[in-house]
């Protein structure tokens, strides 16, 4: 996921990703994407 992708995902929630928040939010988002992948894998 890129910052541009994340911006769109957050905008879809009615929120705005500020440039100053982008890097840190992306780091957390990537952790959560991996967490979701792990959860979905275990759920199957």
């Amino acid at each position, binding site marked *: 996921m890129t910052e541009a992708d994340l911006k769109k995902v957050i905008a879809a929630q009615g929120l705005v990703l500020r440039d100053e*928040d982008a890097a840190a939010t*992306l780091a957390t988002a990537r952790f959560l994407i991996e967490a979701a992948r792990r959860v979905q894998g275990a759920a199957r």
Partner: protein
Amino acid sequence: MKAPPVPSVAEAGAALRSGRMTCVGLLALHRDRIAAVDGQVRAFWAMDPRAEALAAQVDADLRAGIDRGALHGMPFAVKDMVDVAGLPTTNGSRAADPAPALQDAEAVRRLIAAGAVPLGKVATYEWGFVGPEQGLEHPPAANPWNLSHITGGSSSGSAAAVAAGMVRLAVGSDTGGSIRSPSAYCGGVGVKPTRGCVPGDGFFALSPDLDTPGPIAATVAEAALTLEAMAPGASLGQTPGIRGLTIGYARDWFAADPALDPCVLVAMDDAVSALSLAGARIVEVQMPDYALMEAVGAVMIHVQGLRLHRDSLRDRGHLWGRMATQTVQAGAVLSDADFVAAQGLVPGLTAAVDAVLGPCDAIVTATTLTPAPPFAAFDRGAVWTPMRTLPFNVTGHPALSVPCGFAGGLPVGMQVIGRHGDEAGILRVAAAFEAATDHAVITAPL
């Protein structure tokens, strides 16, 4: 001469009942200690204006022969995510509703009914999520053992106030470790009871599936007394000593983690030796996959956190701090399907922990994998602090942290986990460990 740490519940209780001290006088000791050290620790954000009147009522009660028990007259602090009547619940955020709470949270009401005196509101991370962040309405609390280090959170002020000797008892809440990790970092005893044990009415939610109110205190006995008042019957039935108990040591669950500070492993191994010398039979146990349990908890927290805060972020986001904004917004990458999948794994993971507990009376493992990091580590934003706490929010098992040693001059904690509903059992193990060691009598050098 600086005002000393406040007396223990036992000491204060004896003084109150013998007439050597009044509750109003005891309250003054707390205020003196706060005045002496809180400028450095920054635990307290607001004082409860009812405290003097309640203390005077305690004195009148005791003179009239009315004795409500061990907590009668004991001041306590309340995490600022928890309602205290007449004070706003700031949740550490400028975006919070500034109106004062109309009534006490149920757990606070129960403590007051037991005769305890609410002293004031103490620091928390913004919305309970992540911190510490500078530049918010209140500066973050500092670790009394080393003021350039964090307390951990989000029950940061609760742990700091206890560790600094400003109060013996505090109310906190724990969604992924927010009672246990600051307790470990600050050298206090923090109990996350079984989910549902303590009523959550009046506690601001972070992740309703995982949130658990509980106490932080200076000693195991004081934590047990506080828990008992918050949830009558929860800590009754403790049998002294652990001779004959079987304790599972989940060593492999943390020992190989590259983030582990070696001093934590030494402290844990020494702690387990102490448990063995106290008469327990120690067996090494294998826990379910930590990464999966952490993933389940993270998905649940972030999906529910965004649901709770989306409107506030949209409408009042300019008032939010950066760390909380970054953390909550990141949840946008998760879907409802991810949440359902995570929820679906909870019964199996719970059963897996139950299976480990089957032949054991309790499990012990590390609370956090390092001592408290320095504030400087957070200059560029939130930093992941490795711990082993979140799995027991997912499964709902009761878990506490008790001080078990030091790393680089900062406390570290041992986590004790028990069967659902067995708060008495984990308190029993912690009490025996505390009695066999000197960790409870070593205090922060403030």
